[in-house]
């Protein structure tokens, strides 16, 4: 028994040492960059290039400078996205519906497609769809759906630190909204597909004062295709460890039930 405990203590000390060492080393090294190139590098406090050209829903060319004059919600999406992007825009429409702020005066919304193959016609159609979800009067130029050239898209997404990649027809990309100050400064990243009116309101408050709001709910959500079959190994590992744990627990209770109380207790009593 003594040896076993000694052994356990040794293992523990060793492990502590290993992790402590690694912990210290790790903190001095930059986190490894996202290998597959999907994710967000926050660029809070930096500016998006305002001279980039994009196409309006009508097909007219327009620069970002012409559109950004007030706190601006920027949604980077691709319009034919089968899942999370449409969810994001739909939830955004719902949040705008509840938001106690006047569109076009207190804020603007820009949806910019990062798929260079998408055209203004599709943008116009999407715009109609999402505006129809908002049940209060909402001026058409308060929510723009922009499309553009690959080069301009890249410049914008790089400035924001938004990394995505094409997978066939579709994309893998983070899901979030970016809040810009009237001068194009990035003041907040809002992760996830369901923005809260609370967050938007707070962000506008900060954006209008040019204050930067550090990210709060940093649970980055991704639009990604998950293949459970590829992770068979993990699931099997879990299954095996789970079964082994349960097996030993069962063995333990069977032992306890059969063994009953300690014998010497009874003997002591009879003395």
């Amino acid at each position: 028994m003594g040896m076993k405990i000694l052994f356990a203590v040794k293992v523990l000390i060793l492990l502590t040492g290993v992790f402590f060492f690694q912990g210290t080393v790790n903190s001095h090294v930059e986190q490894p960059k996202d290998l597959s190139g999907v994710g967000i590098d926050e660029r809070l406090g930096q500016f998006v290039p305002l001279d980039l050209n994009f196409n309006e829903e009508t097909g007219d060319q327009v620069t970002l400078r012409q559109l950004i004059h007030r706190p601006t919600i920027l949604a980077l999406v691709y319009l034919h996205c089968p899942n999370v992007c449409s969810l994001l825009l739909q939830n955004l429409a719902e949040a705008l519906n509840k938001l106690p702020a006047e569109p076009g005066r207190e804020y603007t919304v820009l949806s910019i497609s990062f798929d260079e193959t998408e055209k203004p016609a599709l943008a116009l159609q999407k715009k109609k769809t999402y505006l129809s979800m908002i049940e209060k009067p909402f001026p058409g130029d308060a929510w723009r759906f922009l499309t553009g050239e690959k080069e301009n898209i890249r410049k914008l997404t790089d400035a924001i630190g938004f990394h995505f990649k094409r997978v066939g027809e579709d994309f893998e990309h983070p899901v979030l909204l970016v809040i810009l100050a009237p001068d194009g400064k990035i003041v907040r990243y809002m992760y996830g597909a369901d923005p809260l009116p609370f967050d938007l309101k707070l962000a506008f408050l900060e954006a209008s004062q040019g204050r930067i709001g550090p990210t709060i709910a940093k649970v980055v959500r991704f639009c990604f295709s998950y293949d459970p079959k590829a992770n068979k190994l993990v699931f099997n590992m879990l299954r095996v460890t789970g079964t082994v744990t349960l097996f030993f627990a069962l063995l333990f209770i069977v032992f306890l039930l059969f063994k009953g109380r300690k014998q010497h207790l009874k003997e002591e009593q009879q003395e």
Partner: protein
Amino acid sequence: MKSDGATGSIRPRISFYEDHGKYRGILSWILTQDHKRIGLLYLVFVIGFFFSGVILGFFMRLQMLAPGTIMKPQTYNSLFTLHGIIMIFLVVIPAIPTIFGNFFLPIQIGARDVAFPRINLLSWWLFISGGIIVVISVFTGGGPPDTGWTFYAPYSLRTTVNVPLAVFGVFVLGMSSILTGINLVTTTHRLRAPGMTWRRLPLFVWAIYSTSWVQILVTPVIGITLILIIMERFFGVGVFDPAKGGDPILYQHMFWIYSHPATYIMILPAMGIISDVVPVFARKKIFGYMAIAISGVAIAAVGSLVWGHHMFVSGQSDFADILFSLLTFLVAIPSAIKVFNWVATLHKGSIVIEPPLLFCLAFIFLFSIGGLTGLIQGALAPNMHLHDTYWIPGHFHYIIFGGMGFGLFAAFHYWFPKMFGRMYNRKTAMRAWAVMLVGFNIFYFSMLLLGWEGMPRRYYDYLPQFRTLHMTATFGSWILIAGLILMFANLFRGLFKGEKAEDNPWDAATLEWQIPSPPPTENFEKIPVIQHGPHDFKELENNG
């Protein structure tokens, strides 16, 4: 701390304080194998950690009084993370099983010690090591963890702060928890005194027994999960990070498979205390002994299957949502059975108002609010609105602090004379109770209201419309802390200056009150033969 302990007819014997064993001084404590000394070791550190958690919480509330003036947002993120990690893993989960389970479970079943005294000491060392590692993680590496106590992936995989060390600390704490569980389960099975049948076990023993099984079964899951986080951070194994083909939802599942049952590890022992204390001060047998005992086991069993209710908005299937919601409602039934039984025990009892009973009554009141608010958020539709708002911390503080915390305080006041052989000032204890109860409700009820109105949790700032409620909550937190200080000061004073306690000041019928205060090293001169149940006060009176 010295006391003759024994009074009355029993021959005076030295208490476990005077019996140093092989070592002297501090070594006689940190190398002891006496379950009572180990219980007190835990007590000292749990109280220490508790107050660090309270101080962190105090500063969080201060920040909400005037956002932006006191600390940076990143500091706030670290504060709520550390408050959570310390309170959950170092205070609430271990407190009752390790302090009172260690100290009283063996005595209550008529044993001289736990089944594995050496493993018991090892558990304590693991607990301390884990605690120290967590503390070190605050001051080293890239700064204190900022993930929230849940360590949700993928953020916990990517943040540059010192997550791995904190996670490893929690892992070590888990090992301690498992060993304590195994020890107490074995003790309950193997070391019961003759005549101590399962139907005669004090309900505290039943509660600790159920809890220990949960600890044994689910703690390995969090262990594996935390190790996977560490592997992922250091070796790039893609289990949870979607960018590497992993699944962040898998993390949430595995985390809550442990952490939801862990909430029952927190509350069940406190329920055991209430079930033992209420009959003593109502001078009545507990109403529905077997119902309480079995409902504890039922809570442990069903409570292990409801983890998905933390993930209603995480994108699991509708079927899973409905199933988990249903199970959540089911687990409320055994909890309600207990509440009804405690109230029924009080009904027509000869109630004696003493501090332990007052804390029990506070438990019943606060736990009921916590339980009912839990049902509201356990229903799918309201959950959409309440998820991640202040409602959630409001709810779980009602359960964890109002329930487990006040249960723990009840235990302090109930067993204090037995553990230390002295009595605290009962009037001051009652005053502290009243102050805490008022402060608690002002504080946490404001949180419920804030959440109801849409204030999200874990935010360092808020919109102007929430100002009044935030100020009220902060004000309540001050009252609560004042009550806490008063209570602990009173206990601390009692430790040194309190009058000598009798062996059985409450006239309780369980075994620990039939031996001297404080107990001798081996607890019993002769292992007793048990002839009646834990609440048979008539028997006690007949025997004189």
